[in-house]
């Protein structure tokens, strides 16, 4: 046997042995402190749960998964530091993103280092624009799809004649409003947009806007407020106090558990939509989803919310793609996800657009009892 072949065999076995001994590093970067701390903690817990589940089934490619979770403190500069730490620790994949600016700052860093980056929750359209990361993947829905659902409900189901907007004044809120207005045009919406009131993300007092809206008395007010821990519950409370008769239509995904917990039955009657519910169809008919919900309840004492589901799904999708391609290479795995369908996730069949966006399935709901977050799915 020639020297080269002997060397090659030795290397091959050496690599095989060391590969089996090497764990696969899964990194998560979410806010674990500060205002979004509890939310980020919930998503990280969900990823942790998935990692444990995969390990209990024998791991991935015969190797064990190890979770490394870091806190981005909702600050882009800190997120960049954490991303660099992930690179130094040679993470094989990073699941990240609660605040869009943090995601946008981390993307180029991870992309340059060749680490696969899956964005779980951040909603900015720039994440998938390809400039920071040509192989981006995002689990949460985008404003474009969200707008279609809400516009359809307001135009076709509510058949509202006068509509107003109460919009958070940033790219997310304004983007959603623009998208809804575009959808209205597409649907040949007969109604009229009477006014737009705006507010800052950090605002907790909305009396001035609500007073303006009450005077105009629209049939429906489309509310976009992503401050689920303080602004939105305060808004809901003040909405009821101001005794507005207009239908409260919330943008997709804003009715998170904290909103129910804080505003309680002021939430009754709110209509919104979201892309995951532990106990509503079609999700309560998906085996993986029920298994996840049961495991989450057992481990953490509460049912998982949409954000937790996004984190868990991110890991599931990645794990399935790794199994299919039998590789951890960033390009190979990303291309097994983007534009493809991954079966057997807690979302059921997860179909991704070529730009990396997961195609969402929406459930439009009405809040029946705000205190217990009991919802009624609307057709």
């Amino acid at each position, binding site marked *: 046997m020639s020297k080269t072949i002997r060397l090659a065999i030795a290397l091959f076995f050496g690599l095989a042995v060391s590969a089996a001994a090497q764990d696969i590093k899964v990194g998560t970067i979410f806010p674990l*402190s500060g205002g979004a701390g509890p939310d980020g903690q919930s998503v990280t817990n969900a990823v942790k749960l998935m990692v444990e589940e995969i390990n209990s089934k024998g791991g991935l490619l015969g190797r064990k998964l190890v979770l490394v979770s870091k806190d981005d403190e909702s600050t882009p500069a800190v997120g960049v530091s954490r991303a660099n730490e992930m690179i130094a620790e040679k993470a094989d994949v990073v699941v990240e993103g609660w605040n869009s600016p943090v995601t946008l700052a981390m993307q180029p860093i991870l992309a340059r280092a060749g680490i696969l980056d899956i964005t779980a929750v951040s909603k900015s359209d720039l994440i998938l624009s390809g400039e920071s990361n040509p192989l981006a993947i995002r689990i949460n829905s985008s404003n474009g799809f969200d707008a279609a659902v809400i516009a359809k409900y307001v135009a076709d189901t509510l058949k509202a004649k006068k509509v107003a907007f109460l919009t958070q004044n940033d790219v997310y809120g304004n983007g959603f409003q623009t998208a809804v207005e575009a959808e209205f045009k597409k649907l040949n919406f007969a109604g009229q947009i009477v006014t737009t*009131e705006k*507010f800052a993300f950090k605002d907790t007092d909305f009396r*001035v806007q609500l007073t*303006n809206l009450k*005077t105009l008395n629209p049939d429906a007010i489309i509310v976009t407020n992503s401050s689920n821990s*303080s602004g939105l519950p305060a808004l809901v409370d003040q909405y009821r106090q101001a005794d507005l008769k207009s239908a409260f239509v919330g943008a997709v995904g804003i009715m998170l558990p*904290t909103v129910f917990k804080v505003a309680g039955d002021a939430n009754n009657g709110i209509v919104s939509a979201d892309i995951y519910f532990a106990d509503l169809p079609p999700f309560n008919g998906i085996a993986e989803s029920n298994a996840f919900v049961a495991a989450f309840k057992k481990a953490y004492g509460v049912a998982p919310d949409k954000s937790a589901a996004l984190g868990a799904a991110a890991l599931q999708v990645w794990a399935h793609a790794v199994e299919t391609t039998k590789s951890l290479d960033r390009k190979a795995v990303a291309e097994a996800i983007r534009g493809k369908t991954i079966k057997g996730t807690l979302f059921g069949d997860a179909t991704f657009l070529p730009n990396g966006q997961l195609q969402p399935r929406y459930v439009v709901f009405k809040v029946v009892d705000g205190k217990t977050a009991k919802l009624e799915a609307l057709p």
Partner: protein
Amino acid sequence: MNIAQQIVNGLVLGSGYACVALGWTILLGVARLVNFAHGQLYMLGAFVTWYAIAKAGLPYPFAILAAILVLAIIGVVMQSAMMRLVMTQNLTSLMIVTLGFGYMLQGGSALIFGGNPQTLPGTLSRAKVDLGALWFTWQDVLVFVITLALYAAVWLFTRKTRFGSVIRAVAEDPKLAELFGINARIVYLLVFVFECAAVALGAALVAPRSPILTSMGFNEVIMTFVVVVLGGIGSIGGALIAGLGLGLFIAFFGAFVAQAYTTAAAFALLLVLLVIRPEGLATK
């Protein structure tokens, strides 16, 4: 009806600003001490009130007292630590030190009270008043009344009592006051403690309007800054008028222009005023 309701909204907002600004303006006027921990003290006052009501089961008035007490003690600790810098009037270092204290309070509160949002039950913020087409809550009334009473009390105190004139003497010229036998140390200590107590009261009254988070503070008190400078530093009556005026400005600017830009507008106004009318701010 819109205008009338916006006037009510403006007064509600304004009395909140004025209430929170009182301590700051006196501190700034007397000790020339910019307390950058003001926002975190507000947050802490709100959380102590919450803890007293929700965990210790105290009724609301006692919770307010608890908040005032706790923050007063913190004020004593902070001021004692800073005393040397205050006596040497090392203003630059003092500003940075209060910034540092603010950070410590934020981190510490997050560790003690956690990151979840909390509401303050047992207050009057849910008790609505409907006056024809107008609406507000009894809590709003409480804030308004107590703010006016507090301002009146403090104004009378500084004008009519001996201790009030002592404070004004120290504010005028600390070295000269010391020559007259006034213990400036005690004055500074009491003024700082008053600021902490006042912001605790403000927090206990205003914070129940919305859920509280340990990460809050900056936004809640940013208007304080504008109120104090607009009203004239150290001027009690000025702070009240500026507070209410600012509230009305925000309500009307928001109603007829754009609510989202009110912070920018308020601060731009502040900058303009600082440029064209720096009275009370000019060098001695």
